[in-house]
């Protein structure tokens, strides 16, 4: 009879829907990944604050455009002043040929004047898959209640050089501005652009 129960449980498990990737308007799934010092960081550690997730990869020319132009570091500093937690995630796998070690990641961030609160090494791509991250950069904004309020591109200039990046409409800044003012986020989902995440 225990066998029967097992068979039934299996049948129900098979019928049950699989875990769904992060969806705008829904609770952002919790995760845990090591930061550059190897210490585990959990999303739920930051409950009560706005959180920005940024998928990054120093090997990607799109990411370099946003760091070399100072665009990403200045936004990181700007929102840190408003008590927003910025978490950068690198989901490149060691076998992809674009893996960056924690030491090199720290050096690169320092050289660019970047200031994320935490940088996570997600080398098995678990966090990336959980959030359905496709590109670097791919941006997510989570409100203090833990709800995902924005997912998509960093700005509306998919092509664009450093000068154009400065004049672009930054979707993350706009989403944070509206959400922090207690307004609904008017542009809450866009198509991300950039290099593919190197899972």
């Amino acid at each position, binding site marked *: 009879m225990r066998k029967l129960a097992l068979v039934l449980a299996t049948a129900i498990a098979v019928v049950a829907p699989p875990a769904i990737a992060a969806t705008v308007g829904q609770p952002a799934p919790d995760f845990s990944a090591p930061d550059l010092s190897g210490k585990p960081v959990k999303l739920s550690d930051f409950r009560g604050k706005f959180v920005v997730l940024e998928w990054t990869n120093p090997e990607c020319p799109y990411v370099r455009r946003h760091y070399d132009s100072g665009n990403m570091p200045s936004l990181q500093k700007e929102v840190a002043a408003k008590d927003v937690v910025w978490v950068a995630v690198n989901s490149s796998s060691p076998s992809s040929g*674009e893996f960056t070690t924690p030491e090199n990641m720290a050096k690169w961030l320092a050289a660019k004047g970047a200031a994320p609160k935490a940088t996570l090494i997600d080398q098995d*791509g678990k966090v990336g898959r959980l959030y359905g991250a496709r590109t670097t950069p791919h941006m997510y904004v989570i409100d203090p209640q833990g709800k995902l309020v924005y*997912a998509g591109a960093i700005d509306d200039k998919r092509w664009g050089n450093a000068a154009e990046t400065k004049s672009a409409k930054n979707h993350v800044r706009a989403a944070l501005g509206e959400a922090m003012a207690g307004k609904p986020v008017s542009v809450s989902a866009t198509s991300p652009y*950039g290099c593919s995440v190197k899972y």
Partner: protein
Amino acid sequence: MSRVLVLVALALCTALAPVAATPVRTPHVEAELIAERTAVVPGEPLTVVLRLAIIPGWHTYWRNPGDSGEPTRLEWRLPAGFRAGEIEWPVPERLPAGPLMNFGYKGEALHLVRIDAPTELEIGTPVTLAAKAWWLVCEVKCLPEDAELSITLPVAARSDADPRGAGPIAAARARLPAPAGTLNDWTLTAGAAPDGVALRLLPPSGVAVPEARFFPFEQGKIEPAASQRLVVVEGGYDLKLARAAQPVGAFERVAGVLVLSPPGDPAPRAFTIDVPVVAGTSAAPAAGLGVFAALVAAFVGGLILNLMPCVLPVLAIKVLGFAHHADRRAGRRHGLLYAAGVLASFWTLAGVLLALRAAGAGLGWGFQLQSPVAVAALALLFFALALNLSGVFEFGNLLPARLAAWSARKPALDWFLTGVLAVLIAAPCTAPFMGAALGFALTADTVTALGVFTALGVGMALPYLALAWFPAWLVHVPKPGPWMVRLKQALAFPLYATVVWLAWVLGRQAGLDAVVWLLAAAVIAAIAAWLAGLPGSRGPLARGAIALLVVAAIAIAAFPRDATAPPLAADGVWQPYSTQTLAAFTASGKPVFVDFTADWCVTCQVNKKLVLARGEMLNAFRVRGVQLVRADWTRRDPEIAQALARIGRSGVPAYVLYKPGRAPLVLPEILTRERVIEALDG
């Protein structure tokens, strides 16, 4: 050297030749602009192609790059009066990148652009068409690259084909999707499904679609990496498109490129399509029995299950368990666990059935009532189930007695399993109901089928759940007794009636002979049932004989007989449907009323008897000069299936009024004479 010669020739001759632009080499790409003709002719368009020759292993992107990447783009610098069109994109490839998917080109990417030249141009002067091209080229690594490109052509009164341009331009054109509207003898519709959109393809009859892929123009609509399943449906195919995991904007149109040939075809069959997504067109109540009616019937059936002679006595003992609970909360919990057990059993059954059906559909079996074989088989099944209810024979208990009496040590599990057991123990009595539900589920869509099984389970579990909540009601529970056997026997008669209806449908589909064969099969089935009901039917000889008879009955009932089918009746008033008939009638300038019907559709028959066949209705039609067309879908007919799809329906009944100069008007499924006249005069 040749360039010098050409320049010399350019300077000397009036028959000017183009200056070949030197390709620009970047680390991964060789880029050049190539013109189709040797000269610019004032006022005539000229086709130019941007050719990117990409090093092996790397790729560039289509207009929608998929999960990541960037489409190639061109920024033209043209002389005054010239205008460049948008890039015309050849069919891309699917390029997987880990769990992600890109759409783009490997080896060679060709981008056609039409350049319109002004009418006022001085013959003999050279013209330079210049553009800056940007592209993202990726292997695993990605690099943005760009190049300044130009081509200089003479202005001439006439031009010749440039042999250099012929190859790449012909190759690019061969890979362009055909423009929208090319598939006009097809019917394309798109229905919203829970997990995305089903793109329904109804090709002209006789056209098979071995495979199909869809490339969306926009990002954030479909999930690029999701597999696109092509499923056979009535009259065509459904291409299942999964909704993007992170959608951007509403998924309102299936706009993009539909490819109907295998990947890598140098001249693919590809079409630009733009189909509006309609909510819920995928449901097909094939049996003509409304979904709501089916759910109610299943629920009532579930309730009746509790009164069956093999269920009530067993459960009566369990029900007393409720009374033993001093703790009401525990009693309620046990009631819920019991209900969960019943539902889990029904869902498992439904899951197995739907999986079998899906496997069958994959093999091309149709379970629709349009197939005479399916109708005959169902009639025979229902007849056997009715014999069982009449008490001619009993189904053996599925469970050994000691298992039925088993009780788990954990009370929670015990109650759950009591629910499971209730379904299994009840099998000898529930089989007829289950059989009927199975028969229905085979012909209904997945959601309806699941709903029917859920309703059955809820119906069966509800009385006990109610008793668990309100133990005081126990006094009203009827005592088991001989009345249960009589109830069971009485319930056989609706099933016999169903057999009569199915026999009539079969007769309409396949003629009198088919009905006689079915009746003969029923006699043989009756003999088998009678043998099975005799004492001593457990012997191997008796069992062998029964098995033989059952096989014989099925063989006779299901004997293929489509070939002997008589033409469906056309009376003097209603013309049989065909696309030509409808086209001719609508062209005549008179209103046309089309009755989409089928003999197995009960609602259709009711509408016909109460409204359409009435003298007053026919008079009203005659007075207004309405031409009457009947599309009889009793048998499989792809032409009618397509006509239905065109009005956004997938089943009958459907009533359509075509009035000259107006869009076709689809009338409600439940007709009244007033409603039809109102539509005629409106």
